[in-house]
């Protein structure tokens, strides 16, 4: 009875594109609807429905305007002029102006987004109610500018609600006020949040639905079941267990798609620990791993082997001509012997402290496989799979591991800011997550990163990026093993028109139901 009733809104719609959309995400319920700085996928999903960015990053790696109607980069590449959209109002009725943008860049973006071109920020000024000039110390590349305007959490915040407050603890974060197609309506903690149509949205005709409901489950299997019982319209960020995907794919009511950008997952070597500080050992261990097995078994074939820090999905920079680490246990054995760790009967070559970050089941499983692969080489391996908090602590605060299987180590966009954060000396910041867990420091590489940050010529940028990738793969501090594209499950009746690179964090004003 209840199951039939859950689609009540739909029925009331009587066909057409009115009605409500029930969505879910593979992330747990966030601590807040919007988290300054991003806060991971949970708030990333909900925040993006209410708040908007200046631009959108598209699947074809181009940018299209959102709150900024257009932007131009000065010939010396040291300043950017933004023309803001007119007639945009905040959900509380206040007009959106250049004041909001100036304040956001200074008070929010600058402190929260290091290793971006904001490092060279010289000043931000409003040139009028809808005009803003952003000036930099050094030349900034065009892509980096577009990316700054469109990246994940780079929303424009309402100055009148945030100025003078503690951004992190501002209660508005729990009930965000933005310019987007969806107005935050209510949040029933432990269960769901509701968003209603913004009637004065600046794109006429959007949003196409009346209501957006976001539900959270702790249990992936329950989400899969909810799709099958028709309780859910759409789910992003890997909503269902991979093991269930085959069955869901076979369901004619549902369609399963994959985002282009696969998340890099691979080995992090603690370059300051004795054994793995030797690049030969690192290379040997990389040869010991069968990436195909991981993709096939752990990820049920939904992931593919990764090549290097420039992910294969990166159409801008990917170049197959880079060092590779094919599965070759014999070679691994030889390399270890050369490094001074010969195989000895009845004794291990050395001890290895293997960590698999515990926030996804797949990481743990991969860890189990890796342990076995290393042990087959005669390496005594202890595996730990701590929970999320302890994994993050072990990886980024205590550096308590020799080898870790975790997220990171590649980029599907511009190398800036991802690569310097992960491989640069500046990325070694105790306590900050998704940075340089390997504590790998190479002045040569740092210099290249510095170069890339201010290189405005696309061809030269690509060459430098490739150069960086080669150095990284040679030294192998962090090497992705697989690229795992997140899947999206939707009812076949749900239509997504957007061309955004990340559907999950797009505003969803254009989603319709038939």
């Amino acid at each position, binding site marked *: 009875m209840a199951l039939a009733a859950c689609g009540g809104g739909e029925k009331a719609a009587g066909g057409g594109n009115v009605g409500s959309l029930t969505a879910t995400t593979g992330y747990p319920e966030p601590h807040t609807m919007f988290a300054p700085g991003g806060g991971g996928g949970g708030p990333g999903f909900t925040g993006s429905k209410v708040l908007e960015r200046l631009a959108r990053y598209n699947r074809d790696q181009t940018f299209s305007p959102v709150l900024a109607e257009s932007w131009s980069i000065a010939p010396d590449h040291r300043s950017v002029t933004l023309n803001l959209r007119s007639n945009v109002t905040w959900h509380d009725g206040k007009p959106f102006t250049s004041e909001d943008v100036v304040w956001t860049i200074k008070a929010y973006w600058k402190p929260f987004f290091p290793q971006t071109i904001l490092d060279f920020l010289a000043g931000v000024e409003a040139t009028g109610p809808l005009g803003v000039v952003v000036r930099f110390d050094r030349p900034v590349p065009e892509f980096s500018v577009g990316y700054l305007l469109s990246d994940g959490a780079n929303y424009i915040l309402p100055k009148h609600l945030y100025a003078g407050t503690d951004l992190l603890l501002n209660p508005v974060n729990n009930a965000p006020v933005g310019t987007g197609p969806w107005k935050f309506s209510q949040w029933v903690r432990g269960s769901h949040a509701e968003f209603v149509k913004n009637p004065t949205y600046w794109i006429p005709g959007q949003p196409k639905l009346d209501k957006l409901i976001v539900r959270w489950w702790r249990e992936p299997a329950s989400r899969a079941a909810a799709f099958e019982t028709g309780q859910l319209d759409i789910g992003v960020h890997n909503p269902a267990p991979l093991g269930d995907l085959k069955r869901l794919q076979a369901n004619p009511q549902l369609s399963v798609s994959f985002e282009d950008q696969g998340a890099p997952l691979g080995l992090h070597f603690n370059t300051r620990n004795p054994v793995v500080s030797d690049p030969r050992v690192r290379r040997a261990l990389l040869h010991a791993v069968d990436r195909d097995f991981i993709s096939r078994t752990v990820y049920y074939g939904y992931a593919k082997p990764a090549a290097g820090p420039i992910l294969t999905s990166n159409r801008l920079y990917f170049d197959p001509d880079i060092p590779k680490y094919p599965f070759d246990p014999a070679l691994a054995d030889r390399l270890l012997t050369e490094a001074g760790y010969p195989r000895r009967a009845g004794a291990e070559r050395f001890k290895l402290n293997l960590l698999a970050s*515990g926030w996804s089941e797949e990481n743990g499983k991969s860890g189990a496989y890796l342990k076995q692969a290393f042990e087959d080489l005669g390496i005594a391996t202890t595996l730990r799979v701590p*929970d999320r908090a302890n994994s993050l602590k072990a990886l980024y605060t205590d550096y308590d591991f020799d080898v870790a299987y975790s997220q990171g180590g590649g980029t599907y966009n511009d190398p800036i800011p991802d690569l310097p954060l992960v491989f640069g000396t500046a990325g070694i910041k105790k306590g900050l997550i998704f940075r340089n867990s390997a504590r790998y420091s190479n002045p040569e590489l740092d210099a290249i990163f510095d170069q890339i940050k201010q290189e405005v010529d696309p061809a030269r940028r690509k060459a430098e990026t490739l150069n960086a990738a080669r150095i990284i793969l040679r030294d192998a501090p962090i090497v992705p093993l697989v690229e795992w594209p997140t899947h999206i499950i939707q009812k076949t009746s749900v239509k997504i028109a957007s061309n955004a690179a990340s559907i999950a964090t797009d505003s969803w004003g254009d989603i319709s139901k038939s």
Partner: protein
Amino acid sequence: MIDFLRRFSQNRLALAGLILLGLVLLVALLAPVISPEDPLRIVGPALSAPFTPGFPLGTDALGRDMLAMLVHGARTTLLIGVAAACTAILIGVTVGAIAGYYGGVVGASFTRLIELFQTIPGLIFLLAVVSFVGPQLIFVVLAIGLISWESIARLTRGEFLTWRKRDFVLAGRTIGMGDLQIIFGEILPNAIGPVLAVSTLSIAGAILAESGLSFLGLGDPSVTTWGRLIGEGRGLIRTAWYVCAIPGVAIVLTVFALSLVSDGLNDVLNPRRLR
């Protein structure tokens, strides 16, 4: 002793429980014989159904042998259960004995201590402790012991309260016995029977607590326990229900057996239940 065995074996259910428990124990002891390899090794195709040749109970999502994990899991599960129960018995008997033997402030404050632990929701406490100090086996065992001694202490206290009124305790004092001699030499041997019966049950309780913890993903990840197997199989209930069901059945049978044995022990060891 013979009398004890005879009376115990008269309880057919308890005997059945004992046999069942013996089987589980045997499996646990013979785990290295039944599956000499590391149970966590990937040995076959992932998610083979039970009764697949070579994998009588099938394989899990990585291709590990369910049977191997189950029998090795029996070891750790039982070990955790017994170790935690021992911790609980040690604390429980000590606190209960003191609370029951001594009157006045000492007895009252130890009684209050028991009350305190009766008040704290065990699993909530367990979750908190293990997440803060880390999920290492030893901490898990100690924490489970720490949350499960209270019922043993309450029972021990009750036993001591009744036994300390017995005249032989007075007799002991008239010949100059000290408190420790009376507690350990005179009262404890009498009080221990029902306590032992309950302690058997506390092994079951510890197994259940550990399985809950592991199920929530907060157990020690470096060992295979049945609870963890259930937790790992939970996401697969639609595709491979047996991964979740089989270890669950193992827990049910073991706890069932322990309960029956505890009942039997209680019948034999608790004189008040004879009547």
